[in-house]
């Protein structure tokens, strides 16, 4: 039995790629090391009666084109929008985020009348940048060093996008792409809490602090998604993020694709410079005309391919690929809803993202700890309580809490994480929450702690980096993952990469998988079936 494509890893991008390939008529199999599928988009019962969305936890970036192409709603996917959000301030206050425009303005006005009226212009400017970047997400990045017609055409397309802007807008775009979020926000806002809230999206998943140049782009990376056309909005997959990959798996099944879980790939077979299949842990060999790796670029090439099959320059670039983990996660089963003293009862802000660092400085100091090889003493959290939005994930009245934590380094002062480190990390987080929600700790039924160590071990993310590679300019667009190999191909013929290590990068977006499938189909001159181009941004 020879498959047309063997996909290594049943993460969302692997499944997306598999779905598109299967729909185009290819015989496809997805191989997954874990007993469950989903990679970093999973829902698992880790405590009786509680569904843990224990890795990725929110959805905005997942491309609606893909949801539609692959009929994911038919296969059970529902995205529920956030209703609010809050950033708690020292001293018992909070800054809420509301969907209603007037409520949001009045909320900011409680902190700064000026900032309340500055918000619209800020949101407009960010939206302008989103409009510019969004069409690029579902396109293969041009290789600027190539003179091939398709690269030149793609560069010309990008040029046209640029020159659709006015001269000043172009300058502002370039500034935005290169500056720090702290500097960017200083141009709009005066209040530390307002700035801190806006800076949230600029550091999530990155090994940078908000004062680092390049973080304004990271903000964009998180703001360019949408929930049903509401650009920048965040939502939650009903049943946890595993619902996305479950729907993908169902879609794949409907298209005739196979999934084999429970046995990981130990080696990608390469013969005469071509990938010919994979060998599994259990010794099975799966033969395929091509292998598509959903693993990150380091894991793929440094651990599953014989180095002698790779050119030295490529290997060096892969070795130097920056994939430092910066985050950890606490997944908590709660006996009852936490009561944040700052929030009025019944506040819609509970149905969204919650944060405890009320200034850029605190966020940056948390990053300084990471640089020094520690987890942050006063960490940044992106917390949410999914059961506030989807009550089916826990028994009635009980709650599941997802705490995304920064910063957590891949190694503690040069050593592997120990269990004591992990426990200390968890206590730091729990104490922080307790400060804002007294009695919270007493309601904890179960905690799953995931440091970069667990993320690497269980999910397979090298160094625990949730984006399969840092999102700095040296690793974006035509530089992602490696200059010259940014088009989902590798130096080994018929070995493809489709994970978040590739353009346009991390987040549960699906675009890398979709784009990789597009390249494969292009390579075998097979018409793309059911593959939409990016929706035009009117």
């Amino acid at each position, binding site marked *: 039995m020879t498959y047309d494509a063997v996909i290594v890893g049943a993460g969302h991008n692997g499944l997306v790629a598999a779905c598109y390939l299967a729909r185009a008529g290819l015989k496809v199999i997805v191989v997954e090391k874990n007993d469950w599928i989903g990679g970093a988009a999973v829902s698992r019962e880790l405590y009786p009666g509680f569904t843990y969305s224990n890795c990725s936890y929110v959805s905005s970036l997942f491309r609606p084109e893909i949801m539609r192409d692959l009929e994911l709603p038919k296969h059970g996917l529902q995205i529920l929008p956030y209703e609010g959000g809050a950033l708690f301030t020292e001293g018992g206050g909070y800054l809420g985020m509301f969907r209603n425009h007037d409520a949001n303005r009045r909320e900011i006005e409680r902190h700064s009348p000026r900032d309340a009226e500055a918000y619209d212009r800020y949101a407009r400017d960010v939206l302008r940048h989103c409009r510019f970047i969004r069409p690029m997400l579902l396109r293969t990045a041009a290789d*600027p*060093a190539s003179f091939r017609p398709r690269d030149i055409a793609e560069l010309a397309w990008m040029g046209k996008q*640029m020159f659709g802007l006015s*001269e*000043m807008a*172009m*300058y*502002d775009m*370039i*500034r935005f792409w*290169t*500056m720090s979020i702290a*500097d960017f926000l*200083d*141009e709009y806002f005066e209040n530390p809490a307002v700035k801190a809230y806006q800076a949230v999206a600029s550091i999530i998943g990155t090994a*940078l602090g908000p*004062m*680092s*140049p*390049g973080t304004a782009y990271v903000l964009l990376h998180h703001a360019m998604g949408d929930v049903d056309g509401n650009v920048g909005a965040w939502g939650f997959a009903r049943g946890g993020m595993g619902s996305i990959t479950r729907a993908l798996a169902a879609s794949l099944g409907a298209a005739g694709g196979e999934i084999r879980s429970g046995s990981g790939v130990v080696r990608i077979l390469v013969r005469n410079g071509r990938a010919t299949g994979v060998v599994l842990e259990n010794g099975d060999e799966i033969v395929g005309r091509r292998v598509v790796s959903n693993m990150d670029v380091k894991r793929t090439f440094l651990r599953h391919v014989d180095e002698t099959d790779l050119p030295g*320059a490529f290997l060096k670039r892969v070795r*130097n690929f*920056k994939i430092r983990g910066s985050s950890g996660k606490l997944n908590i089963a709660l006996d009852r809803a936490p009561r944040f003293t700052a929030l009025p009862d019944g506040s819609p802000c509970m149905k969204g993202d919650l944060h405890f660092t009320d200034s850029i*400085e605190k966020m*940056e*100091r948390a990053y*300084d700890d990471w*640089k020094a090889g520690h987890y942050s003493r006063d960490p940044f959290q992106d917390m949410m309580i999914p059961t506030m939005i989807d009550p089916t994930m826990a028994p009635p009245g009980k709650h599941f809490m997802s705490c995304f934590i920064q910063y957590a380094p891949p190694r503690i002062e040069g050593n592997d994480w120990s269990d004591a480190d992990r426990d200390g990390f968890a206590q730091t987080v729990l104490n922080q929450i307790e400060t804002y929600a007294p009695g919270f700790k007493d309601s904890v039924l179960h905690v799953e702690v995931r440091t970069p160590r667990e993320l690497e071990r269980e999910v397979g993310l090298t160094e625990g980096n949730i984006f399969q590679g840092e999102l*700095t*300019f*040296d690793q974006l667009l*035509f*530089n992602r993952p490696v*200059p*010259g190999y940014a088009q989902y191909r590798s130096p080994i013929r018929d070995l493809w990469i489709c994970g978040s290590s590739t353009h346009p990068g991390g987040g549960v977006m699906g675009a890398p998988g979709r784009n990789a499938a597009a390249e494969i189909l292009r390579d075998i001159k097979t018409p793309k079936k059911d593959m939409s181009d990016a929706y035009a941004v009117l």
Partner: protein
Amino acid sequence: MPMPSFDAIVIGGGTNGLACAARLRKSGRNVLVLDARVTPGGAAVAQDFAPGYRAPSLAHIVNMIDPRVEREMDLGRHGLAYANLDLASTAVSRDGDHLVLHGAAAERVAGLGASEQQAWADLRAQLLTFADVLAPFKSMTPPRIAAGVGNEYMKLGKLGFGIRRMGKDSFREFLRMLLINVHDVLNDDLSDPRLKGILAHDAVLGTWLGPRSPNSLIHLLNRFSGQVAGRRSAIALPKGGMGSLAAAMATSAGAIGVTIRTGAMVGGIVIEGDRAVGVTLADGEEIRAGTVVSAIGPKPTFLNLVGAQHLDTGFVNRVRHMKSRGGAAKLHLALKAAPDFRGADLTSRLVLAPSETAVELSFNAVKYSEVPENPVMEVILPSAHEEGHAPSGRHVLSAIVQFAPHAPKDGPDAARARMLERTLAVLEDHATGIRGLVEHAELLMPYDIEARYGMAGGNWHHGELSVEQMLFLRPFPGMAQYATPIPGLWLAGAGCHPGGGISGAAGWNAAERIVKEVRA
């Protein structure tokens, strides 16, 4: 109305102001340079900070003088000579195990292991390739991203071709590394902390970035693209101190007929009918000219000399938003005797930056407007090179100390005292006994530098030289071609492309632009 007797007035007699004035004079214009201080030269002057001790007031080496300025102003003929044209750099080690970097961009490094030597040679070659293609941008007006606006397409085409000609692999690396941080580059290829320390230090010198900050490598490239007297990436000390460079420029400008008035503090730019027509001095005197060029910073020019009422609100916001955080303090020590940096050559540039991490740590503090525990620094002893800087047998130590907060939380005096204490402690750590040699110490914090030299935030580039404020974004979008929105008013200082650093390039570029755009 009196007839203007000058065609152009240049505000500020620093290196850029003098270069600009000289170039304008060569186009046949009558040029007046107004400088607030007693001697022209801006940041490139020397001054007595203690009886008998003379120190370079701000800049203490020359490493990127614009070749056009050197050549056309014939500085050699007007008195510029070098006490040392090729300073070695010593990465000072606390245990005496120094690295000594010789030649252009550390061509030879003494004290390095063989494999590290090779790794550095490879990396250096790559960086120099990039530096070389970037260097020509410094001597041109930044292009506008627009058509029909006077871009120098021939030059740009040539530069673009130059970039492409480096070969596919190098070009790809160029695009990858253009905005990368220096920390990662150093750690990808090198392992010796001393080498990484000095390179990281040099990359972030004069910036408000740490080695881990993205966009920091380009500063090392900028440094490597400098030259002095035809020597690439050289570090030079003018004979007689930094003041002699400015003096040579002033003499040269004077010789071709530029009028220089010192002690002339400009209080405002006169605007009539939406045109700049002259300046008023602090004492009320009005001087008129068809062209007014400000070689001081964009912030004081627009906010103080022009005034918001003559400008659009969005423009004023761009001026205000131009980042100008100074992160460097300047230390002057009068020493009773020569210090001993564990045997390091005192005529070399001594860099106290034990590792790239140490540089990063010293940056951490200023992010929060605090004084770092262990600052890093670049030390020069002018008195080790020649007589005349200190009484016989005694020494002057000049150091640029990073990082220092520009608006400290603790207030200016407490921060200065603490910064001096921490700086002396680090010095003592590397040169035991140096504290006992100090007869007099002067530490200029960024706010002191601002007060003394008018540089906003004490930033010696008149505004941070960061990627988002470079080239066509410098000093800010819409203002990168030296022309201001007010007809007749031009900018020519370090706040403009390509920034400061005792170069004269910005001034020369501005003059070229004026000559091209304005009929004499």
